[in-house]
């Protein structure tokens, strides 16, 4: 666990308490049962913005707290533990894109609203089913953006899209020239294909050449923080279960084969936590972000993949039921593993960063 200052500890404790009491997995079940395509609870989001969680990476002058990514990660991790359905991760990334690349006018127009929850932002980058920021065909002419984006997360609730075009990132508002087709994935959260047909677009012109990469690295790390919370929850639930389930007249936790499995996972989880926290800290320090973000998401993918499978296996038959939560983590895990970089994408990027 990273060394936290007092502010961060308070924030984490508050998030932990809120997620456990106000947003246990039963809340995700309600969202799922409602069948609403935006797939989050507006009242719950209002409560989060009330506590300032949507503005953690937004400067104070624009209505945020400017606590930074480590703090944002602490909150997101707690939300991940209970699978809280919320656009807060994508909104935070959209806000950071504006912080990095927006001009004063754009910042003043959007950041206060993204911080307060008056508007929700998300990221529209990939144009195919796999993450590939090098393959973008979306174009802008005379301030009008045209192209298609695939599997945009939190698209249904979003008022603002940060869209990748051939020559950089643009802000596009929901409305004229933007149409949306729902894509239901296994996590039963919001995903949609977007078609932009001459939609009014404003360029984020201040971020320099690396803006797209910089934004994606922030997205990778924050998604990794969500996965860290998920992995922690699967681990703890499984450990608790093994300590109480009796077969052969003894609790399963007494079988050495299972003890060693849990010990392996404990070590994996430790590595995942170090990688994710280092990613968050790298963003806050501004040093070595690309490498740290790649390590964070690659480790998150590896460990979460393993834990999501082991969680089911070690629960036995009940792990296969919808009544138990462990299957939700598996289904969300695969979606997040594929988001902003699969393991093989990230390995390739890691090698490229290392110059080999």
């Amino acid at each position, binding site marked *: 666990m990273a060394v936290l200052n007092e502010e961060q500890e308070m924030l984490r404790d508050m998030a932990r308490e809120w997620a456990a009491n106000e947003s246990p997995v039963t809340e995700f079940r309600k969202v799922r049962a409602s069948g609403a395509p935006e797939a989050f609870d507006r009242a719950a989001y209002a409560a989060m913005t009330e506590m300032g969680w949507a503005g953690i990476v937004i400067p104070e002058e624009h209505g945020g707290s400017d606590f930074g990514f480590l703090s944002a990660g602490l909150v997101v991790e707690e939300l991940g533990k209970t699978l809280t359905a919320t656009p807060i991760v994508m909104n935070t990334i959209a806000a950071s894109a504006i912080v990095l690349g927006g001009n004063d006018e754009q910042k003043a127009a959007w950041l206060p609203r993204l911080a307060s929850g008056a508007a929700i932002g998300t990221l529209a980058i990939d144009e195919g089913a796999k993450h590939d920021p090098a393959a973008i065909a979306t174009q802008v002419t005379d301030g009008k953006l045209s192209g298609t984006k695939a*599997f945009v997360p939190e698209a249904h609730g979003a008022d603002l899209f940060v869209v990748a075009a051939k020559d950089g990132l643009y802000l596009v508002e929901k409305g004229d020239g933007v149409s949306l087709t729902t894509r239901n994935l296994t996590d039963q959260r919001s995903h949609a294909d977007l078609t932009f047909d001459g939609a009014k677009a404003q360029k984020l012109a201040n971020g320099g050449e690396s803006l797209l990469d910089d934004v994606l690295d922030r997205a990778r790390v924050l998604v990794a923080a969500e996965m860290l919370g998920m992995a922690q929850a699967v681990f703890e639930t499984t450990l608790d279960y093994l300590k109480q389930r009796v077969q052969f007249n003894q609790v399963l936790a007494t079988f050495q084969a299972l003890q060693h499995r849990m010990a392996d996972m404990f070590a994996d989880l430790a590595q995942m936590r170090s990688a994710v926290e280092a990613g968050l800290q790298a963003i806050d320090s501004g040093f070595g972000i690309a490498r740290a973000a790649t390590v964070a998401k690659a480790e998150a993918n590896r460990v979460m993949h393993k834990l999501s499978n082991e969680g089911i296996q070690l629960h036995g038959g009940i792990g296969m039921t919808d009544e138990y939560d462990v299957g939700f983590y598996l289904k969300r895990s695969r979606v997040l593993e594929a988001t902003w970089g699969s393991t093989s994408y990230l390995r390739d990027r890691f090698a490229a960063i290392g110059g080999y």
Partner: protein
Amino acid sequence: MATVSQTDADSGVDAFREEVRTFVREHFPQELKGKSLAMGGVEIGGAETPDQKAWRKAIGQRGWGTPTWPKEYGGGGLNRKQAAILNEELARAGAYNPIGGMGVLMFGPTLLEYGNEAQKKEHIPPICRGEIRWCQGYSEPNAGSDLANLQTFAEDKGDHYLVNGQKTWTSGGQWAHKCFAIVRTDRSDKHNGISFLLIDMDSPGVEVRPITMISGTSPFCETFFTNVKVPKENLVGKEGQGWTIGKRLLQHERTNISGAGAGRGGPSLSDLAKKHSQVDSNGKLADQVLRDRIADVEIRWSSFLLTARRAVEESKAQGGVSEISSALKKLGTKLGQERAELAIEIMGKQGLGWEGDGFTGPELAGVRAWLYGKATTIYGGSTEIQNNIIAKRVLGMLDHQ
């Protein structure tokens, strides 16, 4: 001499092949070509179309749904060679075997071995005709891996047993006509107090509650027995012999799962990869890493098939179960899961569809099968239990005293 008999044999084989071809031509509805019933219909409760029904009746009448089972009980009475030809010809015609489910895969072979004459005459022919669905009443809430801990009790009432208790994870319980169950007839002896009983699912006092699975379907149930009367004729073997018979049935189940769990349905990994990623001018996958990983899975799949064949050959030669057969179930099911995971990776988010527009039927079915496939390393004796069997029974690595 050898040449002459060889020719005789060949002409017999050819005649049989011709017989099968004629049969398929006359009876297999072309509309059903290329379709099949996943898992022999274990998880599907849907109604048959008239074509499907006609095909089931035709092949069932002939006994060819259970080709090697004895003719006197409604089986095909074929030898292995003929059965292989039958399979080849069905495959060639795009036809499938509609006679399946737990009756064929598990219960039938066990009853043929342990049942009395009257039981075989009563139960085997309807299985051969695909008329009766069987379900497996083994697991209970507190008897999973530790199956012998089962508590469902069958009380001796003279001419019948009175059964009380709860089973769970009963696959297809809501669609089954009958249940083969292991129940307790003696509380004083864990293993020798178990008996193998056949229970009508429409008996008064049987209640099933479907359980929803992570894949969104409800293919299994909790099954409750409250004062269910079961005639004594429905005891298979002797009272107290249920553990032996029940374990024999599990061997059939494991052999079947190791292959079925490998999920060979749908397109091959290489075809998927060619569709979803780049191919170079020589027809090779441009993504070297993916190419390597597909080859890795396929190489291990090949050696798995070789191992499966060796296990069959060894058990035939030895007249017993080969010691590698314990490894088969865990190998086949794990490979099936790896294959499903890799398919998802190849397709990206297109491989993670839950429902609705933008996904093909097979894509959605693949996702559900990936999720369902997680069960293959749990049921039929989990991977951990297989490892215990290998370590203790095969390798003699016993617990310290």
